């Protein structure tokens, strides 16, 4: 990867050419403190002195088509593990027969960048795809304007909208508009990277790199929860891992399961922080001709059988703060209710449930749940998807990095908008926002591990690849003299091959996802 100076948490800049003779630098990436001569790497082979700057020299990452190809084990760590760098190797031309090269895609991971020089991208490689010559321009972009949107599948209250989100004491983003079944965070961005204190910038940069690299990040919301988020993993909220998304709000849950409850209970109260549902009052209960049960609950009635604010938000039942379901009961109407009335309380994930039968005084008596009722409670759980954190990277690729592709950058922008040139990040499909520029959005879970790096500006380094037909590349003013075959591009390169994530379309021959 590109110019990763020492450690963003310390912000120690490379002591370039200090005291160690003109061309030597001291690497402070580990306690060995190698003195590295210009052009060489340290004891770990991870850091090198390139042009007097301490530089992380990760191997170039290639993805290989996963479908129908026998997997050749390339070493300990190839595959889903994160440590593919352990299996990096020098390319040998004999390993890349033409048929094999067609199944390989060079990602920008480890490609290095041209920033801020206006020169051809590090790799402009040609491949034949279904008989057509194609070109992929491979680079790593340096992004100041970039952020991560994090979708946290939970209805639990994590903090007020607009609240600052802190990491290691620094503000690194904010809580944004909640979405269906999810809380949303907007993290990073140019104002935190370069607009605040030096420390804020460093902490933001490290946090963004970790998020992009699918590592867990600890966050604290002002006036809200402490979170641990990692792409593709369950969120941890105030120390408790979230398990499931709710099947729907309380009202939706009533609507979905009403007929299945009909013959087994006389009332169902679905506890939910957003809308709590009461079966016999609800339109769905009326439709299946259930008799009013006379159990009144707290909260503000919205429409029949649908109640807002039955309790406070919290970490209890259905995203409320209650742990005893009877605490939301306002009263039992003696004229309507009857002894022996069967009541189910359940949360919108099925994780919490309780069953009661009213006695002669119409008091709730906790009773073992009958099997048919338990079955529907279990079904609520089965219908809840696992709660995950989803991490989307947003970055503007419409700036100077285009100069590594063409001498006339606007032609690249238009070529993408006209679906001629595909844009991928580490081989993963990028959604291109409508409007001006090339604003890409990509799910980091689809990218190879450790795709993100940084420069000490601080700014984030992310892989970007532009793929098109050779003739289209010529038409947009591409650097035709720099186009080389994949095999030649890899000569003498350290590289690692990872399987293409199966959910990703093959970048070559696919159209961009344009908004």
């Amino acid at each position, binding site marked *: 990867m590109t110019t990763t100076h020492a*450690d963003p*948490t*310390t912000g*120690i800049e490379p002591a370039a050419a200090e005291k160690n003779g003109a061309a*030597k630098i001291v690497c*402070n*990436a*580990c*306690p*060995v*403190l*190698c*003195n*590295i*001569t210009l052009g*060489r*790497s*340290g*004891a*770990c*082979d991870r850091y090198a002195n390139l042009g007097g700057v301490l530089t992380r020299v990760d191997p170039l990452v290639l993805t290989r088509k996963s479908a129908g190809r026998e997997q*050749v*084990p*390339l*070493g*300990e*760590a190839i*595959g*889903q*593990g*994160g*440590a593919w760098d*352990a299996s990096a*190797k*020098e390319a*040998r031309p004999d*390993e890349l027969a033409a048929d094999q090269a067609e199944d390989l895609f060079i990602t920008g991971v480890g490609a290095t960048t041209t920033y801020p020089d206006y020169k051809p991208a590090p790799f402009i490689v040609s491949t034949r795809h279904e008989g057509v010559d194609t070109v992929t321009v491979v680079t790593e972009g340096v992004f100041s304007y970039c952020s991560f949107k994090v979708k946290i599948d939970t209805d639990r209250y994590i903090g007020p909208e607009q609240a600052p989100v802190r990491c290691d004491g620094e503000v690194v983003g904010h809580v944004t508009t909640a979405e269906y079944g999810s809380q949303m965070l907007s993290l990073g961005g140019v104002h935190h990277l370069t607009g605040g204190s030096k420390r804020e910038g460093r902490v933001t940069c490290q946090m963004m790199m970790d998020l992009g690299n699918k590592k867990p990040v600890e966050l604290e919301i002002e006036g809200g929860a402490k979170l641990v988020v990692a792409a593709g993993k369950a969120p941890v909220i105030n120390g408790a891992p979230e398990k499931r998304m709710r099947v729907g709000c309380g009202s939706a849950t009533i609507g979905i399961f009403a007929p299945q409850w009909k013959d087994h209970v006389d009332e169902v109260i679905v506890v939910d922080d957003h809308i709590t549902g009461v079966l016999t009052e609800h339109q769905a209960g009326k439709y299946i001709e259930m008799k009013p049960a006379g159990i009144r609950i707290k909260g503000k009635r919205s429409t029949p059988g649908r109640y807002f604010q039955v309790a406070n938000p919290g970490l209890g039942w259905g995203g409320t703060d209650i742990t005893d379901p009877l605490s939301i009961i306002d009263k039992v109407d003696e004229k309507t209710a009857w002894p022996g009335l069967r009541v189910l309380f359940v949360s919108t994930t099925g994780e919490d449930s309780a069953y009661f039968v009213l006695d002669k005084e119409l008091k709730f008596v906790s009773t073992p749940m009958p099997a048919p009722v338990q079955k529907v409670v279990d079904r609520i759980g089965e219908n809840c998807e696992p709660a995950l954190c989803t991490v989307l990277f947003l970055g503007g690729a419409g700036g100077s990095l285009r100069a590594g592709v063409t001498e006339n950058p606007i032609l690249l922008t238009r070529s993408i908008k006209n679906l001629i040139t595909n844009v991928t990040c580490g081989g993963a499909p990028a959604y291109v926002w409508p409007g001006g520029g090339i604003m890409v959005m990509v799910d980091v879970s689809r990218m190879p591990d450790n795709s993100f790096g940084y420069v000490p500006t601080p700014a984030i380094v992310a892989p970007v690849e532009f793929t098109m037909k050779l003739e289209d590349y010529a038409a947009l003013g591409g650097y035709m003299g720099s186009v080389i075959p994949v095999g030649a591009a890899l000569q003498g390169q350290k590289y690692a091959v990872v399987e293409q994530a199966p959910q990703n379309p093959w970048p070559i021959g696919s159209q961009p996802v344009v908004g």
Partner: protein
Amino acid sequence: MNPAATRTALAGGREHWQHGPIDLVIAVDGDAAAVARAYARAWTRFQGVLDELVAELPLLRTRVDQVSAARGVVARRMVAATRPFAAEFITPMAAVAGSVAQEIAGIFAAEAGVRKAYVNNGGDIALHLAAGEGMAIGLVANAHAPALDAQVQVSSAGGIRGVATSGWRGRSFSLGVADSVTVLAHSASAADAAATMIANAVNVQHPAIARAPADTLKDDTDLGSRLVTVEVGELPADACAIALDRGYAAANLYLRRGLIIGAALALKNQWRTIGRLGGPDLEQASPLTRLAA
């Protein structure tokens, strides 16, 4: 100021631990509680290992016949593992990878409920096998054209606790031209030192071999200006045979001295095997070696 050691889960329940130039891949099998206890202890230990080594790095880069005593337990193990080879040029650094692996594997071995474990430090592997346990180890001659070339079944009774591989393509420099030399020994530190020395011995003069002084390639190398192999081109079969025979002679000597249990030497398409890996050669080994094996 230095970034801390990192710990990453890998597929199949393995873990990757990294600190500076140290890369470990660890797999452990046994009673879950015991494994967890051992992992916790091993991780604590691992975080201190690099600093200890760095503290006496100049000493560890000195040829071993000029080293009197090292302080750290890993450093002492490096010295002990390389001293038997002191008749030739060797520094304790020749056993650094194996010695670190052995330190971590030793922690797993000390926990009664851990049945078996391996700690792979960039190809130098320390094993722990409780009584009755075994493990299959694959040999790959050329990591740049990987194929499973052979498989060795090791068992607790056989005494093999270290497997190390050396060659000019590896991360450390080699004076020789072997694609790989894999050594089985009683400990990972012994295997590491021996693999280095045997790989150095696999050598021949030929124009197809490019060499360069080590200190023109890497700063602070313990090899100084000694010529190390940077490229092996089209080497004819007879030249390969000469190189391998030289390596075999060295391996045979170490086998007889009880320093190794077996070795496999690979160059281009040719192989030599000896000791536990060689079949008939075991008969010629000294009774001492056979007992130890």
